[in-house]
């Protein structure tokens, strides 16, 4: 994808703060399960949606990701979703549904992980 940067977990927050300074709007975030690690892509929109910028973070499966919901409040929902659909740990979500936003108690746990079908 064009206009894409890869950052480490530690750089994520500063990079997202830079996006806020450029008045970028948060689009959405995607989580990928690459068997041995997770990859999270944050999609931002610049110039009122005409341009996109993607920030890619790679994360070990047992690692914890810092939440960006303290910078972009609206990211809280998608972070909750990632947390539910994948077995990923995100710390400090502004509005934490504790893995009960989309899935019920009886639903299959972390359904989007590989090897769950």
């Amino acid at each position: 994808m064009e206009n894409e940067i890869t950052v480490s977990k530690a750089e994520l927050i500063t990079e997202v703060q830079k996006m806020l300074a450029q008045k970028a709007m948060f689009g959405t975030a995607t989580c990928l399960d690459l068997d041995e690690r997770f990859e999270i892509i944050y999609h931002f929109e610049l110039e009122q949606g005409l341009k996109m910028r993607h920030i890619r973070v790679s994360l070990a499966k047992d690692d914890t990701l810092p939440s960006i919901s303290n910078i972009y409040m609206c990211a809280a929902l998608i972070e909750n979703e990632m947390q539910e659909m994948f077995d990923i740990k995100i710390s400090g979500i502004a509005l934490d549904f504790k893995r009960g936003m989309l899935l019920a108690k009886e639903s299959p746990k972390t359904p989007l992980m590989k090897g769950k079908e």
Partner: protein
Amino acid sequence: MARTVIPFGPQHPVFPEPIQLKLECEDERIVGVVPVIGYISRGIEKAAELNPFRNNIFLCERVCGICSFMHALCYCQGIEDMMKVEVPSRARFLRVFWAELSRMHSHLLWLGLLADSFGFESLFMQVWRAREIILDISEMTSGHRIIQSTNVIGGVRRDIDEEMAQKVEEMLAQFKELADRSILPTILNDPTIKERTVGKGILTKEQAELLAAVGPTLRGSGVASDMRMTEYAAYKEIGFEPIVETAGDSYARTLVRVKEIYQSLDIILKALSMMPEGDIAVRVTGRPEGEVVSRVEQPRGELIYYVKGNGTANLERLKIGTPTFANIPSLLVMLPGCELADVPVITLSIDPCIACCER
């Protein structure tokens, strides 16, 4: 009266779909709100990994029945982008035709529901009667009233011939006459509608940008952002200007949508007259490989598809970012401080589509 928590939903006549808003009330004033979603989450993203990539079109169409064409369009554009397929220009114009048709029917549907939410029964009936004309066009050109199912990877499935185009123009003229006579004047002039919508649920420009609102919710707050400006399909040839209102209240969002109905009407007529001759689809062989982000403007706002293919018949990952999911945070800003009676109006003013939201 003490502080009470009113469970608004999941089964509630104002919303045709299940969403629950836990409203914390002091008398009839809302002081806090917690949205409870997930009642109709199905897990479509997982199913999309299990189906062959061509079959996913039918699944994507059923993410949401109201904007089903847009979902299929977004998915097909993503796959075409990934496989470097050049779509014939007639197909691109036909896509614009159906896309704007479904935008019209979606906005009319919403307008009816809004009228119903503040108890204006006769406006609800008038709007839905006008909407039937649009649905008739949809049925005539695609074979189904709601789920058009005309997209395939590499083009469209059906063509519109000269005779049919003429009939469509006649029906649109009939629609315009009905809308001019009974819908537009009511919305522009009726004092009770203004009483219920003006100044209700204000979302400022700064809030809208920070909370990443999309679509008419964003444009009603004065931000000229519309994915059609990225000139996908045939919007480049047809030309496009976004509609913006600056007040940021429920009435502004209503006006944006009403004006968009008329704008879509013009775009449809333009698309019909400018449509070039030629094929409507190209044959696509091979399997998708790579990553791509595809965006279209749904009636409710920006729709983002992230598609990752791995060279097999199945996709590695399909991520659907829907407009209602993006608009829910702005609801949390709009609702506190309003009266209970305004909750349905404000909630509907973002045009919630829960089926999209929870997938």
